[in-house]
């Protein structure tokens, strides 16, 4: 059984169809990327999976349990964690306190503090961290929950080249332990090539193509809608 399964998922906003009949699956332990031009429905699809919005029609299931339309906290408890594009942390709390709120145990918190290199900043107030550190703190928080599925919405937005490279390593490391499926939305083609994982391309609310980065790059239809080639 697939970890995550979307079947004929639609989402309308008034007269606009943001997601139009998307069907796809994600297996446990998979690393997968979702790309597409602005307004293609990527973030809406993420929001449907996390429970921020409910599908107009269709089914979204996690390990066979229907999660479409469930509130975010219930979906999170089933094992879905998400990292937002703009880092969302508890600014008035210290790094350690942020992890304490997120983690099931202090061992989980300490593990992620060490893995993200934030242990030396454990007593720093989150609101005083740099942009990249805040992104990593949020990543540490969601990983500390030991989720089954991790959704990352442009995880390297605003990061320096060094931070981006370190984030690639981190994502590949957490995905490699086999217990966690990672689904990444990203615009940065260089970042996606470094991740070297299967990629799904969306356009106008629909899935256009799924394949390796090389296959995606060589697909004339994808080139036309995403890379702008004639």
């Amino acid at each position: 059984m697939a970890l995550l399964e979307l079947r004929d998922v639609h989402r309308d906003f008034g007269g606009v169809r943001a997601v139009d009949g998307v069907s796809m699956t994600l297996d446990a332990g998979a690393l997968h990327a979702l790309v597409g031009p602005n307004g293609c429905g990527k973030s809406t699809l993420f929001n449907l999976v996390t429970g921020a919005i409910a599908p107009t029609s269709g089914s979204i299931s996690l390990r066979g349990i229907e999660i479409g339309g469930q509130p975010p906290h219930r979906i999170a408890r089933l094992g879905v964690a998400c990292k937002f594009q703009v880092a969302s942390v508890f600014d008035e709390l210290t790094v350690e306190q942020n992890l304490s709120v997120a983690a099931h145990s202090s061992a989980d918190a300490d593990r992620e503090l060490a893995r993200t290199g934030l242990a030396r900043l454990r007593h720093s107030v989150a609101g005083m961290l740099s942009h990249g550190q805040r992104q990593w703190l949020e990543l540490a928080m969601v990983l500390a929950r030991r989720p089954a599925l991790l959704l990352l919405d442009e995880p390297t937005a605003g990061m320096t080249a060094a931070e981006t490279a370190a984030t690639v390593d981190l994502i590949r490391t957490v995905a490699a332990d086999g217990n966690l499926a990672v689904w990444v939305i990203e615009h940065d083609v260089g970042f996606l090539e470094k991740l070297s994982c299967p990629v799904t391309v969306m356009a106008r609310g629909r899935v256009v193509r799924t394949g390796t980065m090389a296959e995606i790059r060589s697909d004339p239809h994808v080139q036309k809608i995403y890379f702008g080639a004639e």
Partner: protein
Amino acid sequence: MIARVPLAISLAVFVALAALPWLAGDYWTGQFTRSLLYGLLALSLALVWGRGGMLCLGQGMFFGTGGYVMALLTMGKLGPGLADAWLALIVAAASAAALAAIVGVFVFWGASISGPYFAIVTLAIAVVLEQSIRSNYGLGGDNGLVGVPPLPLGTSAFDATPPYLLVLVVVAAAYFTLDATLSRRIGLVLDALRVNPNRLAYLGYSLFAWRVATFAAGGALAGLAGALFVAVDGFASPTLIGFGLSAEALIWVALGGRTVLMAALLGALAVRHGEALLAAWLGDWWLLALGSVFVLVAVAAPAGLLAAPLLWLGARVRR
């Protein structure tokens, strides 16, 4: 980072308050009995607003509910078998908690009302409740319920010290219990709820459950304060339940410091007695002066006037 006032300072404050009857005489002891109960109301608002992030403009409704339930029970209006004062205190606090839970379910269910909308809804409910009581002759209407029996302490009704000490013990117990509870993970979750509720929901926390539970706990504390207040005062008035007292509580907590429990408690004591001084100096202008101070603090020192000195003192004590 949310800081706590060290135990040594909190203990020193309560020890100093315990000495008051022997230093200040019966009049001030009686005044401070009431002020301490307003301080307990301030603690309840500090929990709900300061820590939980729910700006309640009607916290007085729970204080008043506790007061009226206490009055009805101890005056025997709900049957002589229920007139026991100690049982009535528990029932009064539970009734206020139940009202808070009902209001909480109503406002937080589904899309959840929050921010200024929550403040307006709680204000409206408090005003409606006050008007309902004013027009209910079974509850004494505008006159309220007069002749509420004092607490059965076995001492003279004219001796202000025993009720003061009892109230002090109750307020201290509530303070230390709340302080100890909020120093654990539960306090961090409340701070997270105030700072970034959206993130908290995506970490698996039910905002509905946390908000209703916190609101009900705040209601219980306010209800207990109101029940003791009418027993001390001998009188349950509609003014205990409406916007007036709720707004005053907001001023005490804002001026003291809403995220620091001791600052909120001392804020209530300071403003209550500061009001008397202001009234003596400025006559009818005292309310304008207090309002001006409130606006100044809200703009220039949103953390309150007492929180920073208390935390500074706490840091010195810890060294």
